[in-house]
């Protein structure tokens, strides 16, 4: 793999290859032909999710997505989340392999574990350096969110 930037999530070093762009919602983006962009989860997202057990797409190929429109959901050993469009555009391909074996994301997040391809304007995507700046802020929020949910859990246990 090409050179990469590193972001420390606590003791964990998350690597971000320089050969691609990134979306604010923690997907990587590789520009292909005809304004088509391939997306997958960044190391940051995969680290938060950990072992992924289940993935569902609520859309089919050729669907038109608005920016941040929910298009599916994902469940891991520890967490769950909706999936949100990283940009506006037309879905041209979905990685159906992941339905049967979503662990493909854990195994090869920057390669075979890609999620989908969207055709549209990708000018809003961040460079690796910009994404790292975004992460510095996002990481604070993430820690507060996770801690906040854990605190809610704790106070309800009592």
């Amino acid at each position, binding site marked *: 793999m090409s050179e990469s930037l590193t972001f420390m999530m606590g003791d964990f070093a998350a690597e971000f290859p320089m050969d691609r762009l990134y979306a604010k919602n923690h997907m990587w983006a590789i520009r292909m032909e005809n304004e088509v962009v391939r997306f997958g989860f960044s190391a940051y997202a995969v680290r938060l999710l950990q072992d992924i*057990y289940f993935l569902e797409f609520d859309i089919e190929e050729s669907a038109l997505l608005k920016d*941040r429109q929910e298009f599916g959901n994902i469940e891991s050993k*520890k967490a769950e989340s909706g999936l*949100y469009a990283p940009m506006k555009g037309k879905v041209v391909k979905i990685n159906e392999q992941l339905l049967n074996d979503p*662990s493909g994301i854990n195994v090869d997040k920057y390669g075979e574990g890609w999620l989908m391809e969207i055709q549209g304007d990708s000018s809003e995507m961040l460079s690796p350096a910009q994404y790292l700046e975004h992460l510095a802020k996002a990481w604070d929020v*993430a820690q507060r*969110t*996770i*801690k906040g949910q854990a605190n809610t*859990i704790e106070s309800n246990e009592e």
Partner: protein
Amino acid sequence: MVSANNGSSVSNSLLVVVSQGQSRSPEKRSLEDAIATIAASLPNTTSLVVPHLYDLDADSQSVIKLREWTGPIVILSWLFDRAGFWVLDRHEIRGQHGEVQLLNTDIANEDDDEEDEGEDEKAADRVANIMVRPSRRIYSIDMRAGNSADVFAAEFRRILECEQLDAPKKDLLSLDRFLNPTNSTALSMDGSGRLDGSGRLDGNSASPASHGSPLGIVPLRMDEHPQRRWYPVIDYSRCTNCMECIDFCLFGVYGVDRGETILVEQPDNCRKGCPACSRVCPENAIMFPQHKTPAIAGAPVDAGGFKIDLSKLFGAPERDEDPAEAAARERNEQLILAGRAAVDFNPASTELVAGGTAVATVESVSTKPDRKPDELDSLLDQLDSLDL
């Protein structure tokens, strides 16, 4: 405890059905296997493993097999127990709610269930009280209720006792007929109980299992691989046949039967991920068993997810909308995805507001987290390792 299944007539023995999850979680898979295996070892009990219940087609081998069973059934699934029960009901595998003591939440849903309060006065309106289900009992258990097969086995024994099936019985003949149908297209089975069916969904290829090993000692396994599905499931013990859903849905999912009772007529017309009709149902009778919001998935009041929700971190838009607005937005999103025009939402519309209020009440209580300490422990372990 007897170690081998002694067999009995089909209507006079218990069928334990394990519905496999879609998740690849190794813990879930091994729990499913352990439950099915332990069930097979109980007296007067047949153990059957089927694919994810919700994905099954009406013509699938598993559904056809289940329809043949006239005795009591225990259904175990990774769905809320109410959802499991009504998914079977929709496949005409019907009975009365068997009381289950093994619940997936330690807060029982009896005393604080506000919804039940008005239930008695309105009981006469409910479809299930008009179209009465058969008297045999169906016990629906959410597999999230326990993490070892032993607790499930204890519940099975309790149910066997309730059904007065705890003593060994002798009638092998009818059970043998269930296990070894004299159908010329009968499927053969290997030593581990696995059917080598084609998994095709047309009715003609479907036929009940034969059983190559000693009666009932290993679980029967229906080896079919249904596609994922998405459709509403109606809880007829709540439904009053008010027709709000059929009016709201613009995709032709709902219809009525000859008795003018609402039904999910074209489930596969439903738009994947869209739960809008459940939000407009005034009785909260419509479930989407796979929806991430527990209230929509058929959770008992107060049940919560056990997992941390990362949606906000992964780009979920901030929204401040009531259920009626959410339903209208979701329906419009689906209309646009289907290449159709969005429709206007009139917030003054009485049916939307009435339905929205009902759902809002339930959601506000049901989103209170009610988590298991062991999940909490592991979650906190994880947080520690993240060095927060």
